């Protein structure tokens, strides 16, 4: 396919032009092969060793995986991830789509609203974690304020409740990324050919049907992109939990990412930590590989 071969006659310059692209690409590729795939292999290796505080090279077979699956802790983390990821992805997508559609209606002040929706993505949770923690805390936050304002029976103590705390993580996570998802949908909406919409309106389609039947199907690529981004953010979520609940109350909001960090770096059980990392990577691969495969094959066609 190389465009250079179009030219007849092989001189050194043409040959250089042939090799040059690959030459320029190779440093990036080498970096990624080594720093990503090499390190993944190393982690897989560590998961089969009895590494504790620092990496060790004593092979222990599947012992770490057995320990891992025997920990009730790990099961909690996985169950939490299932709840967190599904809610987070669905809510972010819904809010993002809604805001994008609304913002697309020739809204006055869009220039002001858009950065307001977007800015949470710019802040790290080291920054906003404390503010959220306070806001959600019934003693000093929303509940207290509402009661001070006279709504005596107002109750909002989810962050202190074992069964509800995970939902507060969802709230904060949605706050952080839904505006970003909005931007993606907005870009998608702005790309839709207005002629199609006008034609449909002339045919008498109601606004609701217009969106349901025409616009939303046209946004399919944006949906897919949003899904991939949100699912990988969900699996990687770490700062959020640490800043908000530290995994508590008890262990009620532990996620695989916090589990992995704590076993690798604070509990000196690096082998177990590495095995949990391998499971995480496998999960990511299970989501991403089919997606990438489908996407890239389509492109090539």
């Amino acid at each position, binding site marked *: 396919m190389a465009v250079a071969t179009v030219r007849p006659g092989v001189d050194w310059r043409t040959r250089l032009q042939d090799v040059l692209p690959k030459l320029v690409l190779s440093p990036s590729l080498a970096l990624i092969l080594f720093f990503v795939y090499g390190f993944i292999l190393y982690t897989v290796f560590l998961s089969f060793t009895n590494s504790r*505080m*620092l990496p060790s090279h004593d092979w222990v077979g599947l012992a770490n995986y057995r320990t891992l699956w025997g920990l009730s802790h790990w099961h909690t983390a996985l169950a939490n991830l299932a709840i967190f990821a599904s809610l987070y992805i669905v809510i972010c997508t819904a809010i993002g789509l809604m805001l994008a559609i609304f913002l697309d209606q020739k809204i006055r002040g869009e220039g002001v609203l858009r950065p307001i929706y977007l800015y949470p993505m710019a802040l790290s949770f080291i920054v906003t974690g404390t503010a959220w923690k306070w806001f959600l*805390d019934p003693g000093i936050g929303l509940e207290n304020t509402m009661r001070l304002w006279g709504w005596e029976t107002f109750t909002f103590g989810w962050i202190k409740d074992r069964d509800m705390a995970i939902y507060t993580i969802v709230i904060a996570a949605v706050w952080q990324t839904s505006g970003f998802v909005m931007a993606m949908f907005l870009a998608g909406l702005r790309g839709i050919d207005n002629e199609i919409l006008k034609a449909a309106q002339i045919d008498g389609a109601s606004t609701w049907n217009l969106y349901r039947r025409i616009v939303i199907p046209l946004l399919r690529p944006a949906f897919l992109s949003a899904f991939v981004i949100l699912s990988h953010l969900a699996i990687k979520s770490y700062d959020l939990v640490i800043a908000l*609940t*530290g995994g508590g*109350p*008890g262990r009620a909001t532990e996620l695989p990412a916090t589990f992995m960090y704590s076993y690798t770096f604070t509990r000196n059980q690096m082998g177990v930590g590495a095995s949990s990392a391998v499971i995480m990577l496998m999960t990511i691969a299970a989501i991403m590989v089919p997606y990438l495969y489908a996407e890239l094959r389509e492109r090539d066609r």
Partner: protein
Amino acid sequence: MRTTRTWTAAMALACAGTLAAAQEGAPVEVLHWWTSGGEAAALNVLKEALGEQGIGWNDMPVAGGGGEAAMTALRARVTAGNPPTAVQMLGFDIQDWAAEGALGNLNDVAEAEGWDEVVPEAIQEFSKYEGNWIAAPVNVHSTNWVWANAAVLEEAGVTEQPETWDEFIAALQAVQDSGKIALAHGGQAWQEATIFDGVVLSTGGPDFYRAAFIDLDPEALGSETMVEAFDRMAQLREFVDPNFSGRDWNLASAMVANGEAGFQIMGDWAKGEFINAGLTPGEDILCFRVPGTEGAVTFNSDQFAMFDVASEEARASQAAMASNIMSPEFQIAFNTVKGSVPARTDISDEAFDACGKKGMADLAAASEAGTLLGSMAHGHANPAAVKNAIYDVVTAHFNGEYDSATAAEELVNAVEAAM
């Protein structure tokens, strides 16, 4: 040939130059997590003392999670083959790093200054590995303290300092009846474990504490006494406000300081918060040992572990730093700010407040009596993996997931699984 000789000469010159510069003293690089105003300023005393001896100080603070972030950074540094000179460390971490062969040796300075005689033996167990000094202890915190707001107690009619567990419960009840929060507590695993330190010690006494947390004897861990200790935790749970979960310890201290709550069970670092709120320890804020633990002290000690550094000059600076850490001047300057007590028992208590004086006397007495015990909650009784496994159970029980009998059973399982 000629060129070679010129080269050699140049090299020699260059080396000489480096040596001359190093005579000033190689700078020490210090990894620590003392970043809040008071404690960082206290550490600055050490920096200045070294500066006077011509030794520079490369500061490398990494705060977060009681040193967790710093320990992660340390692992990266050591793996990179570039360890800092000295690292703030707690308990078993020091021994673990020594076992990895990463630490240096302070025997010369320790011998010259007679550390063996003045540092309590229970603390030496962490500062020494296979008989060699590897770390210089900066302070001794103790965890079995109760802090109480004198005014709140008076209002509730509590006039006597509780001596036994039952008296303590009665006092808590009295404060609760007076409409205040009886026990200020922050629901984080380590805070619950801190209370558990005191409760276990009070329930079973020093020998039981040692058997359960230091020797990790399954019989002690699963015993009736342990069930009773959990029962006492459940008792305390009744005196905590509904909003305790996730609260930072210093906000709990603030509740005691501003009179919302009567008591807090917390290590002596809480004292700084009270002093900051304008209260005088021993007068406005009462300090006493968790009832039933008088005579014993559960401690944790911040130490500077000295890493194995390559050059002779760096080692000299390291020794100078260790010597300065152990000097009475620094121990007093640092510990009066930090709320802890000096790591050596031969220092005058003149500069300390009432609670500090009591802490120093208690430490010396406990060390004498053999009841100076490493704090489980702060990693001085057992290694990190075991400690965290115990945290899991204590927190789960405190949050109502287990009853006391189940908790004791789970404790045995969890400790076994972590070993």
